[in-house]
């Protein structure tokens, strides 16, 4: 749930709570006020009744029946006077109750005053009732309109809240999008502040900026370090290899020493390959190359085949190039060449004798897909997923790759925004697909 929705929800919940509390208070006070109002009226009426009592009336009333009941035509109020036996103490407190009474077949709610009094040595019970129906209907109407008003105001404030938080949070999402999501490389980061007058967002923006500064400094430092170290290592390697080559020209060199020196030269060569690979990766990642050549994939593949033909023939590999179209990609020719060489070289290196290499193409909506399939030894799934990491490789006794070929491929692919995917199964081969974007 995003911040905006949370704000809106919180606002809604608090508003509903406030409304419920207020509504309850209003309704309760309405109840109390109306009851209180009726009670005072009833009390006044009782006084009137008691004032107007005199013997005759009461007598005539009581004589005829055990009790006297009277109500007006519209059944809005009634009065009941009943003689009760004198037993125990008289209860002179006025009590008020709300009750439903049926009067001539009509059921209504009445507020009823109960009272006992003594008159001429007789004890009477007096009930004065007044209908509450009008009051109830007024209350219902008030309740209904209050609810409508409240719901409408709730909806309006919700909508305005939502719109307002949307407006307020817009810079925040802009910061997230432009400063975090769209950043692929700290070197191409835009330090310009996103316009906002919310202080918190300004703080966030500046914090991200300073974080990015630190990251890009570290990035540069690391790249520089790799480049410098590699460069500094190449000179001593040159000296060593020159020295060893000069020792080899001596006439009386014992054969076992000669072998050792050749082995050392080979080790030096290995060092050189590792360093050059690291240098290449760091140069690609430093974006020291231009991407302005029109590279024909077909032409590159033909060139590479010429270079690697001997190795393919040597392993008796069936090489099938099924590329028909001449796809032109704008990038760095040398790098694309290196990328393809590395992939095809692997397809040869890890192939079995009399295996096959098939190169296919596929045109789709998003671009041009080149597939290099081999019938080689393949690799385990988890190794395939880590294949692009530096120095990751399968231990293989026959081959002396240094585990950097695919790391180079990966950095070149990233540099050109190519999607590269490797699918492999142990002992059945590997498929590398490269997707070149169009345009």
């Amino acid at each position, binding site marked *: 749930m995003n911040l905006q929705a949370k704000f809106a929800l919180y606002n809604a919940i608090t508003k509903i709570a406030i409304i419920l509390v207020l509504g309850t208070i209003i309704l309760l006070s309405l109840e109390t006020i109306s009851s209180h109002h009726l009670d005072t009226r009833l009390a006044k009426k009782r006084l009137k009744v008691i004032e107007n009592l005199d013997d005759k009336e009461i007598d005539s009333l009581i004589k005829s029946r055990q009790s006297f009941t009277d109500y007006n035509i519209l059944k809005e109020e009634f009065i009941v006077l009943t003689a009760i036996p004198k037993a125990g103490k008289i209860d002179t407190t006025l009590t008020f109750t709300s009750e439903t009474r049926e009067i001539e077949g009509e059921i209504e709610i009445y507020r009823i005053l109960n009272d006992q009094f003594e008159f001429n040595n007789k004890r009477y019970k007096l009930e004065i009732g007044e209908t509450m129906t009008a009051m109830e209907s007024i209350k219902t109407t008030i309740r209904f309109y209050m609810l409508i008003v409240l719901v409408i105001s709730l909806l309006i404030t919700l909508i305005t809240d939502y719109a307002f938080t949307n407006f307020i949070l817009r810079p925040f999402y802009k910061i997230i999008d432009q400063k975090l999501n769209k950043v692929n490389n700290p070197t191409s980061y835009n330090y310009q502040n996103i316009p906002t007058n919310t202080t918190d967002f300004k703080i966030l923006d500046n914090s991200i900026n300073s974080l990015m500064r630190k990251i890009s400094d570290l990035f540069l430092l690391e790249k520089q370090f790799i480049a410098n170290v590699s460069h500094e290592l190449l*000179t001593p390697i040159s000296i060593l290899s020159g020295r060893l*080559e000069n020792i080899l020209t001596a006439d009386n060199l014992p054969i076992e020493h000669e072998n050792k020196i050749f082995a050392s030269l080979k080790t030096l060569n290995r060092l050189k*390959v590792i360093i050059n690979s690291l240098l*290449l990766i760091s140069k690609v990642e430093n974006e020291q190359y231009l991407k302005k050549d029109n590279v024909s994939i077909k032409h590159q593949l033909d060139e590479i085949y010429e*270079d690697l033909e001997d190795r393919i023939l040597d392993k008796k590999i069936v090489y099938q190039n099924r590329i028909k179209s001449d796809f032109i990609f704008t990038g760095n020719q040398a790098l694309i060449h290196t990328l393809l060489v590395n992939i095809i070289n692997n397809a040869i290196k890890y192939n079995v004798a009399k295996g096959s290499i098939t190169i296919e193409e596929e045109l789709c909506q998003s671009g041009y897909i080149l597939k290099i399939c081999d019938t080689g030894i393949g690799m385990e799934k988890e190794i395939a997923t880590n294949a692009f990491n530096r120095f990751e490789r399968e231990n293989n006794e026959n081959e002396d790759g240094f585990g950097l070929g695919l790391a180079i491929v990966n950095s070149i692919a990233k540099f050109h925004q190519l999607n590269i995917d490797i699918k492999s199964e142990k002992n059945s081969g590997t498929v590398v697909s490269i997707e070149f974007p169009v345009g």
Partner: protein
Amino acid sequence: MNVLIVEDEKSLALEMDEFLSREGYIVEHAWKKSSAEEKIFVNNYDFILLDLGLPDGDGFEVLKQLKNLKDREDAVIILTARSEVDDRIKGLDGGADDYLAKPFSLNELLARMHAITRRKHKLEKNEVKIHDFTLDIQNRTVSYNDDRLPLTKKEFEIFNYLVLNKNRVVSRMSLTEHVWGDILEVNSDSNFVDVHVKNLRKKLTQCSKTDWFETVRSIGYRINY
């Protein structure tokens, strides 16, 4: 042939000196840009082996100075461990004849120098005799008693490189690197060089005995002459 080595790494310069002296070159040294410029101004050299990262400046400036002098035929090979992408292009555009990235094999340096010599002096040394065979470097052919052998491009390259480094063991690794270029992660253990050498030897043996064409077990090859 006079060679000027412009290189601030003394150890490396001395190793190059030793190797080239044994090949019959007369070697001089300059450790700095300033002394290199002086020497170039005073003397003519057949070869200037130029390092780019000099303590008191950029090797490119030495190259510029040289190109400003009239009537100079000095061949320049740039030797550098510098990793700028466009250095090679910049060097060749600036008038250098070749470019070798450190670390390089001294055999390779020699091969490059020979190639430049052949380019510069078209008439000289275009034919090399090796036992009963003649290598025509210009036309890239090998003949036996005026009969041309049907060698492939790669076979000629291998033969030429071995002849150039005659009496020295040439390892598979440096042979591979010379003939196939510097394909990253080239598998120096792979025996695909051997296939070419085997074919080459077969073609030579059909004409005459080739006991001078030696296989040095587990290392490489040597041509004795």
